[in-house]
């Protein structure tokens, strides 16, 4: 069970931080960070001493369900990323949130809630990367969706923030449902939800393209790739620590992680991978261009995230074992840049590149550390980022010159927008601002240190990157990370990209406004517009239906009965009609039955002409009692007893209800009901005809002993000689559970409705 220790520690962080926060709000962050670091320590220790392993906890074996966890290269790398960046972000928000809450005019104790949510998100992410079962994968994925909704909408008084949270929930939630459909298709096809088994069986029998596309849509929505990219820049309405975490180590990484985890399924499907490749390049280009022209610096970073995950997607689609390394190196760089942006916003109060600048004199440490992070993001040597582009170019070089050119342009654009961002924040004429709190700068320095360490000693990166790559491919990885001073393609491409980036940055004033205009024009016809139109139309449709339905009670009843009746008639229409309607014979032995049925029919007909609601209730109960009589004659005393009791109870309750209603209103309703409209007759005709014909058809096909004898036999075996009881409690027991749940729901409804009316009366 030691594999569970890091997971349990991660899960414990949020409750522990909450308890600590009750004691003293400031303690929540420290507690949470300590928990995250402890989980990371346990993870690294176990990884070093025990290596990869799996754990299967049987849960419902008769349904083939079990809880499966894995510790392999992928889960180790991503969990370490989520825990490490999580700990730093939590510490950072200890310094960031009090100021932010003060600006928003909210109480300081909301900080504890924020820390708890952030830590819960971290736990969900750790869960996501360690489970090894398609169903649990979906559960963890939805956990991250829900918690990210709460985090993005944390400033709940801000309408923009709420709208952004809802947009991200709708988009990532809807795509994760598509993912679920794919997972179900795979699980049913291969007869198991256990991921290793699915992958093993898929080796002989490749998964269908439809299922793979479903899985890919879920992953692309999560990773904010084209055409689902537009939720990510809007999510910038969240507090900066949230953006920092979501973009680097968590939410957006989850999508690419899914593709890496499921890569062995995608490996044989070259057409799906080609589609992913195209989407990856598209996201890369679109994100980079938008990042070049955006003004608010958080949005620059958001578009950069879309572009960078486009790279990662390209790597996955090419089947490169460098994909996990790419994401893992991107995480500290992007986290550090976001944390820098947050610190700058807090110190200056500004959010746009055009409003800040020249901060390198006032914030030298922050400027230096973020310069390292920016260098890492744009893959300059002596940073770990250099190797992420090396694996990228290496994978492209194997596919030919067109791919190499696309990669060159992408990397050049990355350098250009990163330079623009850093220079926009720190370059230019001197500006004096107060010093930033130390806790805002320290996490950036730690991340920058890590980026430098990885760049100077690339040997440290090789083992985890190879383990993750091997877990992704399902085959040993031969990834090599080292500096080579020769004219190989990777080096030439890197130098070319730096040159292109520098050129673009030097000349960007000349073309930036034209590009901005073009992109704004393009965005008017983009997927975001389609999404809004779709929502608008759905909203209109539901309003229209609602208005039709609620106009009055008769319309509401008709809206249920008429579609049901039409469905029944359609069923009768499309099935063969031969021998469908038989007329049976009636003998003297049936005389009692016929009498009871005649009584029931007479009562039913009398309801058409009845005056007064009480009389209606009594007539309807007459129908019920005659049917109970039918059951009694037909040797079903059980059903007869139940019908009599139920009929009695409901008649009395109905009478009690009528006594409660104001009499003048009852009279008015009665008068209205006595003048039926044409469409009421039509609706009643359709529903009645359908019910009549369906019953007749069903009764024409009764075969006396089709199930009866078998049921009686089984009832004895189930120790319930009473067949009705056996059916209710055993054979159809789950149905009974469902019905009883409905009864309890009705009970709650009665309690609250009548209580509510009483309250209103009391106020009047």
């Amino acid at each position, binding site marked *: 069970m030691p594999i569970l220790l890091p997971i349990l520690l991660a899960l414990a962080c949020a409750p522990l931080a909450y308890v600590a926060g009750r004691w003293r709000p400031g303690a929540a962050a420290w507690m949470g960070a300590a928990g995250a670091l402890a989980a990371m320590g346990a993870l690294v220790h176990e990884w070093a001493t025990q290596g990869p392993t799996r754990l299967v906890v049987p849960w419902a074996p008769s349904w083939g369900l079990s809880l499966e966890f894995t510790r392999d290269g992928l889960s180790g790398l991503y969990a370490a990323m989520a825990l490490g960046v999580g700990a730093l972000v939590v510490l950072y928000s200890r310094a960031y949130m009090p100021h932010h809450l003060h600006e928003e005019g909210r109480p300081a104790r909301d900080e504890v809630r924020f820390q708890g949510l952030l830590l819960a998100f971290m736990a969900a992410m750790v869960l996501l990367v360690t489970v090894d079962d398609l169903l649990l994968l979906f559960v963890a994925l939805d956990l991250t969706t829900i918690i990210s909704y709460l985090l993005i909408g944390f400033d709940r008084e801000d309408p923009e923030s709420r709208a952004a949270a809802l947009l991200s929930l709708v988009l990532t939630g809807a795509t994760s449902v598509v993912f679920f459909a794919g997972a179900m298709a795979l699980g049913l096809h291969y007869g198991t939800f256990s991921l290793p088994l699915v992958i093993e069986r898929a080796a002989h029998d490749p998964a269908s393209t439809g299922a793979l596309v479903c899985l890919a849509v879920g992953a692309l929505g999560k990773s904010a790739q084209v055409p689902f990219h537009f939720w990510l820049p809007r999510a910038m309405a969240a507090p900066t620590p949230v953006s920092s975490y979501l973009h680097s180590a968590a939410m957006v990484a989850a999508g690419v992680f899914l593709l890496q985890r499921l890569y062995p399924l995608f490996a044989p499907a070259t057409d799906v991978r080609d589609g992913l490749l195209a989407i990856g390049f598209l996201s890369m280009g679109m994100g980079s261009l938008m990042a070049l022209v955006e003004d608010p610096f958080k949005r620059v970073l958001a578009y950069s995230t879309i572009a960078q995950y486009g790279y990662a997607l390209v790597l996955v689609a090419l089947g490169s074992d460098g994909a996990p390394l790419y994401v893992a190196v991107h995480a500290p760089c992007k986290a550090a840049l976001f944390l820098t942006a947050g610190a700058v916003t807090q110190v200056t109060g500004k959010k746009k590149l055009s409003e800040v600048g020249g901060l390198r004199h006032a914030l030298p440490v922050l400027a230096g550390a973020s310069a390292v992070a920016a260098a890492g993001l744009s893959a300059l040597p002596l940073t770990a980022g250099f190797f992420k582009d090396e694996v990228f170019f290496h994978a492209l070089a194997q596919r030919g010159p067109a791919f190499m050119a696309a990669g060159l342009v992408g990397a050049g654009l990355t350098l250009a927008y990163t330079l623009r961002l850093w220079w926009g924040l720190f370059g230019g004429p001197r500006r004096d601002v107060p010093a930033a709190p130390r806790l805002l700068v320290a996490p950036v320095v730690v991340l920058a240190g890590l980026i430098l360490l990885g760049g100077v000693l690339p040997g440290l990166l090789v083992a985890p990157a190879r383990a993750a790559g091997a877990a992704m491919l399902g085959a040993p990885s031969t990834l090599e990370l080292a500096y080579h001073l020769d004219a190989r393609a990777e080096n030439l491409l890197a130098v070319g990209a730096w040159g292109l980036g520098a050129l673009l940055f030097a000349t960007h004033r000349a073309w930036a406004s034209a590009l901005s205009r073009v992109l704004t024009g393009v965005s008017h016809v983009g997927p975001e517009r389609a999404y809004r139109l779709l929502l608008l139309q759905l909203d209109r449709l539901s309003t229209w239906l609602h208005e039709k339905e609620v106009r009055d009670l008769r319309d509401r009843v008709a809206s249920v009965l008429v579609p049901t009746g039409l469905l029944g008639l359609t069923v009768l229409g499309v099935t063969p009609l031969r021998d469908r309607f038989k007329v049976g014979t009636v003998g003297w032995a049936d005389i009692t039955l016929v009498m009871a049925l005649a009584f029931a029919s007479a009562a039913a007909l009398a309801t058409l002409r009845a005056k007064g609601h009480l009389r209606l209730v009594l007539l309807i109960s007459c129908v019920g009692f005659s049917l109970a009589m039918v059951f009694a004659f037909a040797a079903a005393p059980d059903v007869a007893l*139940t019908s009599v009791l139920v009929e009695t109870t409901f008649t009395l309750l109905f009478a009690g209800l009528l006594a409660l209603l104001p009499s003048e209103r009852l009279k008015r309703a009665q008068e209205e009901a006595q003048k039926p409209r044409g469409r009421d007759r039509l609706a009643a005709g359709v529903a009645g005809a359908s019910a009549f014909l369906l019953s007749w058809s069903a009764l024409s096909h009764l075969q006396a002993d089709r199930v009866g004898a078998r049921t009686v036999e089984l009832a004895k075996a189930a120790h*319930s000689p009473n067949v*009705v009881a056996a059916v209710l409690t055993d054979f159809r027991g789950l149905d009974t559970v469902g019905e*009883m*749940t409905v*009864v309890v729901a009705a*009970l709650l409804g009665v309690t609250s409705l009548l209580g509510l009316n009483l309250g209103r009366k009391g106020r009047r």
Partner: protein
Amino acid sequence: MRSFVPPLSRLLLWPSLMIALAFWMKGGASVGGGFPAGALAGLAVLLQYVVAGRDQTRRYVAVRYAAPLAGVGLLLVVGTAFLPVLAGYAPMSLFPRPDQPELGVGGLHLHTALVFEGGLMLIVFGLVVTVIDRFALRTGTDAEEESGP
């Protein structure tokens, strides 16, 4: 007429409840079951409301806590249905299993279906009594409002 109806109806309560319990216990073997048992018990309480009034009837504990009783019933029903899943059985597995010997004393058969039926009984009883109680509450305040200033 008025003189003997209230005491008689009060006398009827306990026998009705006994019959309801009997319905429940013998439901698996012959006519009866949890559903009619709950309805019968509810009707017995309804009679008390009609004759003795709300305040008198609410002196019975089972009447005051009818809605929570329905909750207990739902727990019993869901528990019987899904507890076997934890032990690896299909949902709604009843014990003793079909191939196992029956436990029983005389005409009484012990079976987990009895727990299930007991849950049904409590739910139906809870629904009926709660609805009656709410109705009685409403009519009671109506009368007070009309007689008030």
